[in-house]
């Protein structure tokens, strides 16, 4: 199986804090991966490094064999990478539907002059994009907010809206940062289903998540981080049986 994403000895320090230290792992195309670890283990920092929000202090990130470490997020989006955020990053000055349409930015005609003159191709593109965005909102289960402004939506729906926006980019690899955080058990179960559907479409999914039931249910590969270092990597069964992981989560006996 081809490695879609290879991380090699990736490190990030903030002053004296080594948030991520020499972490290496690979993401296989078409599989669901999870990154777990106690709070402060560096999971979100790792996501921020891979998605270009932070620049790595050292190490390599290779997407489809090409070095992409240090590229800005918009360049990574062009290469098929998309993500959601643990702390919502919703544009509250846009409608819910427009938030999803933002995700399709790279698929639309972005000519400035045509936009000024409201060229027919722009109108047509936007109409199709709007319809697709509405479908995506139904798909992730926030269909009843299609006509809403983003700032009137409840938290759980906004989490899904982020997923819809990420999907609008039609990514090859999708990073979900704590998609279930703050959701109730019913919502989490629905989310589980949505992620299953996304993976079934052939999108490679990497998620950071604290909900172990969701993680064990969904993922084929798990990376465990602790204090910024890789503690373990493997299938859910392997990780569950790993004594280091048990020690990190429950404290050493």
């Amino acid at each position, binding site marked *: 199986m081809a490695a879609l994403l290879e991380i090699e000895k990736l490190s990030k320090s903030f002053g004296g804090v080594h948030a991520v230290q020499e972490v290496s792992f690979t993401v296989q195309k078409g599989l669901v991966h999870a990154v777990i670890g106690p709070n402060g283990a560096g999971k979100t920092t790792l996501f921020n490094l891979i998605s270009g929000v932070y620049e790595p202090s050292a190490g390599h990130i290779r997407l489809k064999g090409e070095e992409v470490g240090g590229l800005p997020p918009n360049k990574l989006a062009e290469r098929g990478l998309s993500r959601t955020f643990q702390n919502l990053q919703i544009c509250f000055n846009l409608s819910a539907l427009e938030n999803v349409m933002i995700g399709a930015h790279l698929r639309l005609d972005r000519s*400035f002059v045509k936009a*000024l*003159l409201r060229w027919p191709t722009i109108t047509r593109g936007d109409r199709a994009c709007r319809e697709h965005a509405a479908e995506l909102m139904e798909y992730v289960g926030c269909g009843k907010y299609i006509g809403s402004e983003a700032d009137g939506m409840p938290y759980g729906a906004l989490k899904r809206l982020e997923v819809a926006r990420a999907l609008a980019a039609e990514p090859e690899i999708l990073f979900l940062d704590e998609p279930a955080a703050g959701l109730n058990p019913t919502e989490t179960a629905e989310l589980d289903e949505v992620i299953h559907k996304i993976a079934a479409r052939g999108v490679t999914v990497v998620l950071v998540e604290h909900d172990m039931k969701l993680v064990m249910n969904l993922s084929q590969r798990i990376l465990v981080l602790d204090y910024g270092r890789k503690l373990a990597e493997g299938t859910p069964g392997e990780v569950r049986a790993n004594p280091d992981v048990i020690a990190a989560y429950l404290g050493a006996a």
Partner: protein
Amino acid sequence: MNVLNSRYGGLAVLAAIVLLLPLVLPNNYYFDVANRIAINAIVAVGLNLLIGYAGQISLGHAGFLGLGAYTSAILTSNYGWSPLAAMLVAALGVAALAFLVARPILRLKGHYLAMATLGLGMIFSIVLTNESALTGGPDGMAVPGFELLGWSPQGEAVWYWVFGALLLAAVWLALNLIDSPVGRALRAVHGSEVAAAVAGIDTTSYKVLVFVVSAVFAALVGSLSAHYTGFITPGQASFLHSVELVTMVVIGGMASTFGAVIGAALLTLLPQVLSGLEDFEMVVFGLILMTSMIFLPRGLVPSLRGWLAAKGRA
């Protein structure tokens, strides 16, 4: 209510106002006030793209307006250029300048961006004041009338149609832009810069683009209004004028094109009403800005729209 929400409803209302207003304007003085409203409104519509939609502040836009005005004035009166050629050169020159300064300036956020643009505007204003050999210094300079293919608008009532048509065009272009992929990208930069970047939006380029566009709006209006008034002073490029322009956008309603027009109308009419208080004009502007920030933080038009929508639901 539907009129304000439908795409071209607002534009139709504005067009009707522009068409019908001359019937009630009694003399040239009123035409002049109307023209100055249109002039300010066009600049405010452009500035609103930057401030209201893309969420970037500029306290130096009067500088671009002044540069446009003086470029036109100098090229036509000192070098005998045709007004149209001078206007195009002014617009291109300001576009190039805005493009050059935008990248370093727009890396800044919040107060720092405000300070940098304020400084930029002041530099322009100082240059225009001190280069008196070219600009006539603080005394200002005379500008020949506008002329295009043998036609030259004379008198306030004729200019009224020029500015009225340009205002409608500016509003139409702004409405189109905002409801397009480019416009959504600009608004997303305001809403969440990191979300925009992750969606593939080159946030820096879009900020530069909207900065240049708003500067060109100001420069074009500066050129044309210089020909209209026939006389310009460095006061047009002053910091106070920049603040006035920002106030128009904020009062009328950020991220509302018609709000910018209404804000421009209010702030142009206000000095006419308060003519007895001329010395305190700036104090009154400040008070209005503060009051509107406290009571109508979203500006007149968006607040009104929200209020009407709430009433409609009740």
